[in-house]
């Protein structure tokens, strides 16, 4: 564990720098002076179309870039919170919503909704149901096998269930209308923040807040879920009920993310694990820090996605490209024999 205060300062500075950069960069660059003026004008109710900022800069800042950055931050924070919770729940620092197949389950539910041209609320419910079904299936299979190496069992179960869900996804893609539905599905499976609106971000924010409440209230008790069941129960924890609440909350967070912007992998795995290595496992400390780091990371990734090339790159592509090498380093650090 590194000095926690220094870690905290670095995280806050990184967050502020990332936020300013994300607001400034893009096809319509906004200088920091313009940004400061526009935010000041917005807060005081002054006329934003003054001489201090380029025309339409306020629209870019508050209507286009702002909601998108807020959405990216929320999704990064939510996936990291869900990942941290799942890691405690499965007593395994290397699980995440995507490795456990929760993302695939949510994606299959949502893609099915797109395929059947269902209304958006049904698509989101299907995403939630699919995610919950996937995590329940993996939990159940892991319980039944009770192998000598529970971590290996769990990871292998996740791989198997994810590939099963993958076959379902492949079938829907094969059956989908190649001119209208297929591009929408493909686009959405790689993740994207470009279609986020103020309205969809608002609905997602409300659902994220609702699912965060139980995680926040149970933040300390979630530590005990990392212990063997018997030990946690002997310490006085109602393990079954607590676990159920945490699973539902973390799955809702994942499903809302998937419903908002598609699948963005690796964030929920790498961020909480890295933050845990830095500040320790204590969940009430881990949760807020992992959320800020995950949100910042997602904002940086999304800004890169819309600035490094002529066309937009799907964020799922970048998170995987950045996440896999980090994951390798973390795995080496985790399984390194002590002393």
């Amino acid at each position, binding site marked *: 564990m590194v000095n926690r205060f220094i870690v905290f300062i670095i995280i806050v500075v990184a967050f502020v720098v990332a936020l300013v950069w994300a607001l400034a960069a893009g096809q319509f660059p906004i200088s920091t002076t313009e940004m400061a003026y526009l935010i000041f004008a917005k807060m005081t109710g002054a006329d934003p179309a003054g001489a201090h900022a380029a025309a339409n800069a306020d629209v870019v800042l508050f209507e286009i870039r702002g909601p998108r950055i807020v959405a990216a931050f929320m999704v990064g924070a939510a996936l990291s919170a869900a990942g941290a919770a799942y890691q405690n729940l499965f007593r395994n620092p290397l699980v995440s919503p995507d490795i456990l197949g929760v993302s695939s389950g949510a994606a299959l539910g949502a893609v099915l909704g797109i395929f059947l041209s269902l209304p958006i609320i049904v698509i989101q419910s299907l995403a939630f149901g699919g995610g919950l079904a996937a995590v329940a299936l993996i939990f159940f299979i892991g319980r039944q096998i009770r192998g000598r190496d529970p971590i290996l069992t769990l990871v292998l179960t996740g791989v198997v269930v994810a590939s099963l869900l993958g076959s379902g996804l492949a079938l829907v893609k094969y059956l989908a209308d190649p001119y209208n539905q297929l591009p929408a599905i493909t686009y959405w499976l790689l993740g994207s923040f470009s279609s986020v609106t103020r309205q969809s971000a608002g609905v997602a924010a409300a659902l994220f807040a609702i699912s965060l409440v139980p995680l926040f209230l149970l933040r300390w008790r979630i530590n005990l879920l990392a212990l063997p069941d018997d030990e946690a*129960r002997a310490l006085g924890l109602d393990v079954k009920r607590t676990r159920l609440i945490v699973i539902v909350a973390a799955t809702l967070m994942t499903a809302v993310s998937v419903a908002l912007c598609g699948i963005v992998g690796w964030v929920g795995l790498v961020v909480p694990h890295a933050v845990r290595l830095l500040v320790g496992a204590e969940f009430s400390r881990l949760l807020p820090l992992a959320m800020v780091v995950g949100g910042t990371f997602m904002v940086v990734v999304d800004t890169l996605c819309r600035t490094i090339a002529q066309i937009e790159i799907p964020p799922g592509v970048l998170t995987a490209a950045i996440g896999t090498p980090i994951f390798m380093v973390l795995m080496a650090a985790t399984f390194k024999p002590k002393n």
Partner: protein
Amino acid sequence: MLSTHHLAIGYSTRRLAADISFSLQPGEAIAVLGPNGCGKSTLFRTLLGLHPGLQGEVRLGGTRINDLSAAEIALNMAYVPQVTSGFFNFSVIEVVEMARMPHLAWYAPPGVLDRQIATDALAEFGMAKFAYRPFNALSGGEQQLVLIARALAAEAPIILLDEPTANLDFGNQFLILDEIIKLTARGISVLFTTHNPDHALRIAHRTMTISREGNIDCGLTKEILNNASLAALYGLKVQLIEGPNGLITAVGR
């Protein structure tokens, strides 16, 4: 007070032992001895309300264990499991604070008072200097002491220890036994399992033996453990030898 009445333990497919009746008095230490697989761990899980008994009942403070919630049980009875390595890097003080759970509201993390109690419990076993070290970085003996300190921080009148001396070196085994004596001196009731008759002879007021066939014998340690009973229990010839300071050790022949 923890007591059982004609308790039978085991699983639907296999009964391990039957007709277990005892009551654990304040400040008393009872050792549970028996060969591997005789049901010591199952007995503990049944006493803790983690596993249902097949017949009879377990009572904690007069109430049947099945009628109590996990938190109500934890307030009266603390459990010291065998040391297992976890992947999560909790600090020592955080591990000890976990024992405060039944004292806290469901949404509340431990506060200043809880940290003080946890620190005091660590100090009791000379472990206060390790409070902010990662639990996983401690040696097996140190981890065992931390888990005993955690049981003390629960402020429960009864402590159950599952093979507290397993996996410890010779010196640490006796260190742990001395600490268990300290617990009973404070009026805490202790029930522990062990594979070593010497440990029962050294600190247990009473001893319960569980044979491979599931037969139970319970009484004063010196009456329960003798050459014949140990020979029957473990299936080898045993001789108890008294040392110069009155300590008795069992020698297998």
